């Protein structure tokens, strides 16, 4: 602490000077906050004000700066001082804008500002400069698992950006499913006719790049490390294992076709003339420029029926519940195979909802209609082995049976995401060895992570994705799922997706090289550190880390992989012995802020409500409440936190036993449709709070003094409302007895 010098700058602009007694705030910063330099300025974010701070940093060796002005989310470009620890004490959105401008409120508003100054100074005092761990070097090599459209596109995009790529393809050829198509749905105007798949051109492009290596008939035997220093054992065609290092990984393992043999109602397998879409592509490729014949007897095809949603969008057991997205366009394209060859062939597409996503979709649909493809809105109940199609026409509301020469079933995509590690974990818990047999599937990445060999699955077997906020990010930092392993999609969408994944992989490896965090705290240099001598090896941090960043070393102590870490602090919140912290964000910085707040004694009738607000959603919502001049309870003291997951129960217990009358935790919606940037933070917080009830009761406190809430960024009316309700509740149950 000896070589630190702290300064506090109090802005009087935006009405702060008129509403608050800045001189008194300066006094508090000097006397209670122990700031060595305290300055007031009329307009801190203008060039002159910023220069004043800059001069102090340069000439006075100031390295801790408390800026008491607007919210930390405002004026970030003006107040941007590298290598300096900073606290942004929020007097504008957090104080004057949420309080009425009248004589009556003046005293409580001033007290609010004073407390925030105390808290800001306390935060600074316990903050250290973040430095990064230097765990890894820059590695510009990207591992791409899967050589289909997505994998090939990622490789080409990475190579074009000047990065090295290695493709691991388990089959003997690049191209994946797209390589088995006669044509694809068009991707350029006028979107009227089936187009060339361009797989050959992509293969040629990959051949031409010196920096793209392709391993065919190869798999990944083992993956370990972290972004910037991944190490992969590649089981090559020759049977030998090659170990290479990579900066980032793209998983483009695509999909398997749904097994149409499950669809007994459609007699798949009972007649050679009932095929799935892949089967029709094979027939079309075999026919070349000639007419597609009936596979059973080589006869001319006069009438083709396409059954959409075969085994998809279904609630039946063993069928797919989701829409695979590409099949309507694919059926239109396949109907064109017939119509373009001979317009007299009847082609009928039976659908319940025709879905042709993408820019080409609607135009391509019209083109199909123009070419005379018949579209019937109906549900097919049965296809018999002699190709009688039974359907209910939903427009004419009648049951119909018709005869076809060829039936094409539009079955769906089943993602090839490897092992469902969550199922493995829960089975281990429940059934032991018996469950091992149930775990079908072959691991794709064979990750040497404590948390399992593949990335977590989101739903329906699709690989992980933060579907609301950043769809590319998975819970395995530096590993990006792309293409049909991430969600159902067609060739064009897979290409676009793969280009994005390549850029994310580049970003991840460059960030890792600089010791910076990936999304969403991108650029953050701090990382978890732990006091080994205090650790009890309880493993709670390794289990609760949403990103699998923590392994165990040989002595069973946690081993932090900095560049896998997303800096949410869930480990810090989990640790029962409080040994995990970040340099600039720790139990100390939070705890001292909580302590710094002035707690008036019981008889002053001025309660204190501590609010720990998620910096991603709840805090911006509060800023917006300020901008909208929504007033709220003056006894609220808000501390922004990285994630509710970083809140250790001990902090909350300390707060209520040191005189706070209520504690509110403001996090994101949790559960299946979670919005938490760190996936499980809000959920963990709710769980932890449910467990401190007994402790509170033991202290003679009402459990309702501690309330976790799920709020979203749009709740700018609701959050102030919740504050006010908490104020009313305290009025009812009385002040905390812990005021000393």
């Amino acid at each position, binding site marked *: 602490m000896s070589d630190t010098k702290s300064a506090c700058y109090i802005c009087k602009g935006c009405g702060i000077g008129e509403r608050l007694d800045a001189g008194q705030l300066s006094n508090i910063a000097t006397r209670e906050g122990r700031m060595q330099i305290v300055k007031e300025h009329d307009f801190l974010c203008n060039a002159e004000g910023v220069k004043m701070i800059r001069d102090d940093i340069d000439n006075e060796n100031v390295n801790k700066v408390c800026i008491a002005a607007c919210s930390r989310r405002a004026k970030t470009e003006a107040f941007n001082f590298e290598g300096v620890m900073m606290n942004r004490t929020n007097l504008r959105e957090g104080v004057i804008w949420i309080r009425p401008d009248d004589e009556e409120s003046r005293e409580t508003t001033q007290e609010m500002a004073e407390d925030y100054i105390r808290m800001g100074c306390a935060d600074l005092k316990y903050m250290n400069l973040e430095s990064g761990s230097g765990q890894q070097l820059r590695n510009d090599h990207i591992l791409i698992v899967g050589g289909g459209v997505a994998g090939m596109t990622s490789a080409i995009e990475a190579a074009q950006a000047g990065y090295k790529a290695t493709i691991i393809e388990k089959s003997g050829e690049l191209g994946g499913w797209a390589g088995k198509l006669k044509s694809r749905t068009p991707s350029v105007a006028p979107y009227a006719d089936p187009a060339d798949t361009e797989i050959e051109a992509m293969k040629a492009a990959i051949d031409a790049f010196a920096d793209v290596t392709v391993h065919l008939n190869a798999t990944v035997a083992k993956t370990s490390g972290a972004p910037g220093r991944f190490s992969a054992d590649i089981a090559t065609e020759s049977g030998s294992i090659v170990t290479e290092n990579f900066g980032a990984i793209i998983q483009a393992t695509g999909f398997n076709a749904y097994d149409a043999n499950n669809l007994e109602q459609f007699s798949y397998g009972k007649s050679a003339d009932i095929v799935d879409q892949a089967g029709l592509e094979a027939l079309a490729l075999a026919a070349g420029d000639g007419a597609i014949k009936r596979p059973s007897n080589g006869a001319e095809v006069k009438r083709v029926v396409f059954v959409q949603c075969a085994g998809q969008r279904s609630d039946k057991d063993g069928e797919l519940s989701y829409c695979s997205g590409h099949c309507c366009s694919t059926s239109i394209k396949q109907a064109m195979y017939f119509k373009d060859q001979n317009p007299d062939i*009847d082609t009928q597409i039976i659908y319940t909802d*025709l879905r042709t996503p993408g820019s080409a979709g609607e135009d391509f649909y*019209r083109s199909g209609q123009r070419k*005379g493809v018949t*579209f019937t*809105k109906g549900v097919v109940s049965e296809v018999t082995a002699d190709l009688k199609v039974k359907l209910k026409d939903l427009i*004419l509301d009648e049951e119909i049976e*018709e*005869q076809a020469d060829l039936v094409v079933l539009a079955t769906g995509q089943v993602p090839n995401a490897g092992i469902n590690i969550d199922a493995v974990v829960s089975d281990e818990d429940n059934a032991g060895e018996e469950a091992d047999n149930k775990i079908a599937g072959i691991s794709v990445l064979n990750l040497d992570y404590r948390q399992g060999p593949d990335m977590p699955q989101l739903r329906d077997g699709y690989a992980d994705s933060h579907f609301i906020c950043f769809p590319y990010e998975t819970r395995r930092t530096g590993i990006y799922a792309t293409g049909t392993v991430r969600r159902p999609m067609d060739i064009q969408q897979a290409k676009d997706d793969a280009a994005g994944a390549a850029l994310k992989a580049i970003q991840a490896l460059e960030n890792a090289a600089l010791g910076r965090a990936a999304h969403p705290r991108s650029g953050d240099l701090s990382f978890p550190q732990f006091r080994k001598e205090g650790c009890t090896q309880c493993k709670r941090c390794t289990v609760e880390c949403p990103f699998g960043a923590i392994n165990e070393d040989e002595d069973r102590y946690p081993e932090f992989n900095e560049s896998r870490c997303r800096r949410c602090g869930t480990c810090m919140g989990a640790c029962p012995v409080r040994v995990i912290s970040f340099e600039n964000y720790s139990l100390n910085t939070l705890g001292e802020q909580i302590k710094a707040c002035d707690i008036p004694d019981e008889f002053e009738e001025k309660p204190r409500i501590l609010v720990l607000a998620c910096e991603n959603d709840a805090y911006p919502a509060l800023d917006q409440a300020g901008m909208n001049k929504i007033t709220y309870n003056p006894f609220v003291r808000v501390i922004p936190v990285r994630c509710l997951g970083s809140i250790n129960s001990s902090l909350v217990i300390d707060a209520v036993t040191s005189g706070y009358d209520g504690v509110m935790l403001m996090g994101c919606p949790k559960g299946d449709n979670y919005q938490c940037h760190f996936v499980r933070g809000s959920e963990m917080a709710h769980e932890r709070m449910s467990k401190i009830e007994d402790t509170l009761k033991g202290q003679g406190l009402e459990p309702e003094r501690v309330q976790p809430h799920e709020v979203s960024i749009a709740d700018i009316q609701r959050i102030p409302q919740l504050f006010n309700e908490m104020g009313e509740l305290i009025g009812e149950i009385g002040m905390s007895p812990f005021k000393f």
Partner: protein
Amino acid sequence: MSEQYTNNFLKEVEQNVEEGDWVKMCMQCGVCAGSCPLGPHWAHPPQEIFMMIRANKREEVLTSDSMWMCTSCYNCIARCPRELPITHIMHGLARYAKVQGLAPQNQPTAKFGQLFWDNLMKKGRVNELKLGVALYFMNGFVEGIKTALAKSGLGMAMFKTKRMDPMEILGGHGIKDPGSLQKIIKKAQELEAARTQSN
């Protein structure tokens, strides 16, 4: 059975019905059916008619009175997201049904259409008095007298305000040379017959 959902009737409609080649472009959204002010009064809204054409239901479509109910309000055309000229197709289908002799018997719109046409062709102008009288007696003599008596008040009012000239019954006004008009129409009908024949 196996004739169902073949494109035979769709092709016939495309070749013979005014704007019939639009029928295949319908995407079955149902906006036309929801927009039609006469919706509750017909057996089949346009959406269904188009689906029936695609389902090869020739008899059912052409004998239906649905398309005769169209009042040409153009709501469906204005709203169709696929920009189908639905009103025109409805009239085209009605006309084609009549030419084919399949239009429903005693369909009032069809009857009125014929009366109007015959009236117009005589002098090249519509004689409203004669058309009105013909309309009263469309369903028989007794019915006609009853209607005429019921409407006599309206007739007298129109006469007093010079909205109706009783002398029109004796011949009425017309264009200078109705003979030439009739020749033009005849020629047009021959041309159309030749065109349909060639199909």
